[in-house]
């Protein structure tokens, strides 16, 4: 296949990925790697390189909108980024020592979790969260915009959140994904942060986490310009349009459909990794 043809197809696929990702909150990154590796037969390392870079694009683009709405908590994000960036560095350093088939399987498992997380809204057990002295010391508590004025919230279980954030970073560096689902898990479920704050702060953090492994990816030659170009541009355009449409669309059924597609891709990845095809 010639460059022109490949570029056009990858661009088209990336636009779709970015669009659906923005619409459903799953991010474009989750389908970029399977799309490139499974549909185009591209080596996993080029695929994760291209995906990682596109993740930075969507995260920064989306974050620029979320931050201004006042939901994202900068201190929570920054403190937890200590864990995610170290994890990402570790993941990137680890990556060449992990066979691509294992990467594919891990990727599939993470994808399955992301798909599940995007359609399930676990109702959190337990009542309102009491202030946690450590969290207060680190100034993590905040408020979110409410109909009758700002609603305060408290943060708790900092060490647990830190540990899961490290894992999120590790996965990001290893697989070239944003790990948004894991980050939200850490904040929403473990640290008891309101969902909307968790998702927007996670979005805000994803770009920084990805940037931590990018330098290493560059040096190893995982990021091929010919591939990065259509992926970055495609996902960027798709996510932009998706974000605009999101305001007007009924996302419910679409989220389920996309989650089903992602789950199918996940199983395909696990299968291909297990049989050594990837």
């Amino acid at each position, binding site marked *: 296949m*010639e460059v022109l043809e490949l570029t056009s197809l990858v661009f088209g696929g990336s636009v779709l990925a970015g669009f659906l990702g923005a619409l459903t909150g799953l991010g474009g990154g989750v389908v970029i790697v399977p799309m490139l590796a499974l549909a185009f037969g591209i080596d996993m390392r080029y695929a994760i390189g291209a995906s990682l870079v596109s993740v930075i694009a969507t995260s920064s683009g989306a974050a620029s*909108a979320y931050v201004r709405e006042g939901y994202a908590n900068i201190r929570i994000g920054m403190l937890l980024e200590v864990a995610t960036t*170290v994890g990402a560095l570790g993941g990137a350093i680890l990556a060449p020592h992990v066979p691509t088939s294992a990467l594919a399987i891990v990727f599939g498992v993470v994808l399955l979790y992301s798909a599940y997380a995007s359609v399930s809204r676990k109702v959190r057990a337990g009542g309102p969260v009491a202030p946690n002295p450590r969290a207060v010391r680190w100034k993590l508590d905040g408020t979110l915009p409410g109909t009758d004025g700002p609603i305060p919230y408290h943060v708790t279980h900092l060490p647990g959140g830190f540990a899961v954030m490290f894992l999120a970073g590790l996965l990001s560096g290893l697989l070239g994904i944003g790990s948004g689902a894991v980050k939200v898990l850490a904040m929403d479920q473990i640290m008891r942060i309101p969902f909307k704050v968790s998702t927007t702060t996670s979005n805000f953090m994803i770009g920084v986490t990805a940037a*931590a492994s990018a*330098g290493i990816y560059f040096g190893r030659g995982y*990021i091929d*310009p010919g591939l990065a170009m259509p992926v970055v*541009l495609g996902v960027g355009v798709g996510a932009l349009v998706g974000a605009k449409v999101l305001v007007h669309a009924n996302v419910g059924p679409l989220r389920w459909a996309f989650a089903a597609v992602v789950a199918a891709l996940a199983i395909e990845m696990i299968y291909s990794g297990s049989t050594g095809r990837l």
Partner: protein
Amino acid sequence: MSSGGWTDDQVEQTMGRLLRFGVILAGSVVLVGGVIYLAHHGHDVPDYAQFHSIPAPLRSLAGTLRGAAALQGPAIIQLGVLLLVATPVARVALSIFAFAQQRDRRYVLVTLFVLAVLVYSMVHGYRDQPPEDAVPPVSAEKSAE
């Protein structure tokens, strides 16, 4: 909410604008590089099935800048990608400044640490090091640009 300097809200606004500017700038550079790349290499047949890493010049900052100055498509794309990666890094740097303005020493240190990790990744990673897991390229011409 803050003891002096910028309010959290002002910080957030500026950060949002910085992020958006960075992404648009990076995207434009990638686009320009892409157009040049397609014009010169549109009919090449690439092999992405085997991982050969990428040509050595593009694996280092110096090589990328040289190539971009010479108006080579792939190098300009790579430069755009670099700008994209630089965007969240700039955001972190801005945070340091903002926390310093608010006299928040604790978070200045936290953010400095994050910045250090990012800088380490770029400095340590982005130099021409022979990739450990690459298959040697099939033909010598592939590495020349």
